[in-house]
């Protein structure tokens, strides 16, 4: 059974999509709604632990991620939009699967039964399924004339214990091509944006971010398309004025390809204003006015 035919998924937004990247969350909902997929937010979810927790305390990182696996409804796949959250939750799920003792401890701690069959789905996997079903055909050409640099970031990199998991590289390019946009080839598709160094060692993050931005500009890309809210934020805040090109969440461009579903209010949440580019490309004509 494909994911698309399973129209009801549970949904783990994660802290970034719930706060700093609300426009990512909103556009993702808009897109999947259009195709009849209903997302129900996991009740009372908590932070996956983020980069900081596993950096200093592996056990704490495991427990925080594991609580979400016990909060998830057992009968539905859980969609995770943030690649960072996906990695943390999948890691915890693997640790649980390998240890009866951990399963029992968690069952006691969270007072719910362990569900060995809970399926964790990254947004890319849902998209890949939708693509197989041919949904992009009806949207063909909607993003004509746009030249993008696909940017996956590092959180889809798979360490040895996860090397059977897909990283979905190529999906942004394939989807964008179906929608009429052209993707450039460039060497930074999975380069780390610097994550927390953006706060604690801003000069190092700035160097990385500007290499990435210059790399995109050098290939003639007009914008960067990210799949990670953390990357989106870092590229926008650490980019020097001379290297600024708009950064889109993947889901924003997907929604832009739907007739009349795009909201200008999403653009107002960008630090690098994408409106001029979209107007120039005449992609913004059919937009819903701000505030709707």
């Amino acid at each position: 059974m494909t994911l698309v035919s399973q129209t009801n998924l549970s949904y783990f937004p994660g802290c970034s999509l719930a706060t700093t990247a609300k426009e990512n969350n909103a556009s993702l909902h808009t897109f999947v709604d259009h195709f009849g997929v209903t997302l129900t937010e996991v009740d009372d979810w908590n932070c996956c632990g983020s980069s900081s927790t596993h950096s200093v305390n592996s056990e704490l990182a495991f427990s925080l991620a594991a609580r979400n696996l016990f909060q998830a409804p057992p009968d539905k796949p859980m969609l995770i939009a943030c690649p960072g959250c996906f990695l943390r939750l999948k890691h915890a799920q693997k640790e649980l699967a390998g240890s009866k003792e951990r399963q029992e401890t968690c069952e006691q701690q969270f007072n719910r039964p362990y569900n060995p069959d809970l399926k964790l789905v990254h947004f890319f996997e849902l998209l890949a399924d939708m693509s197989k079903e041919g949904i992009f055909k009806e949207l063909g050409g909607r993003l004509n004339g746009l030249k993008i640099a696909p940017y996956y970031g590092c959180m889809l990199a798979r360490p040895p214990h996860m090397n059977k998991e897909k990283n979905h590289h190529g999906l942004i390019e394939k989807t964008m091509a179906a929608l009429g946009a052209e993707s450039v080839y460039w060497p930074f598709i999975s380069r780390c944006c610097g994550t927390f160094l953006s706060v604690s060692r801003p000069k190092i993050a700035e160097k990385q971010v500007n290499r990435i931005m210059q790399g995109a500009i050098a290939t003639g890309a007009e914008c960067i398309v990210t799949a990670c809210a953390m990357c989106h934020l870092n590229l926008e805040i650490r980019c020097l004025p001379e290297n600024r090109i708009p950064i889109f969440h993947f889901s924003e461009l997907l929604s832009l390809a739907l007739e009349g579903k795009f909201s200008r209010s999403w653009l107002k949440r960008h630090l690098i204003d994408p409106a001029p580019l979209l107007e120039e490309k005449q992609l913004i004509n059919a937009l819903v006015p701000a505030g709707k």
Partner: protein
Amino acid sequence: MRTQTYPTETITGEPVQPIELDHSAQNFIDQVEDLSHSHLSRCWHCLTCSGGCPFSEDMDYMPNAIIRMIQFGLKEKALSCSTIWLCVGCNTCSMECPNGVDVAAIMDGLRQMAIQEKIPAAEPGILSFHNAVIDSIARYGRTHKLEIMMRYKLASKDLFSDIDLGFRMMSRRKLDLMPSKVRDRESIRNIFKQNQTDR
């Protein structure tokens, strides 16, 4: 018969210091392997990890040099370097290693060991940021970015850098004033209690 001679200086002109190995070297290796679920003897120092690491130019030692240190049992040196703190866990090294050594997990292990053994962090600002994030999770069950930034700035006594960026982010409504919270905070408190953190 030729007698073998050894260089007395490194290529950078520093005197060569002999490394004395004793049984504690193996203890350290075992500890790291246990924490990282990775086999250090698999590393053949091809430098793929160091070449691929986006941050190696800012580290005091290359990632593979850290592995060499562990193989030689140079515990203090490995735990007091900046490399283990500047590693953000992007997993590029772990993915690219031809022998499946999980370098990022080794860095996690070393960092945690350094904290447990109270070895001063070579990058105190980074540790202080991690603590600010974890405090926020302990308090709300989720991260509250504005408060994390404020607390981090207070702890590092650096209130004014990035202040313009803070305003830009506020004006674009990137930083929420109020945190998003978990309802059942008792369960979050229990998680922290069980993992013996004194927060």
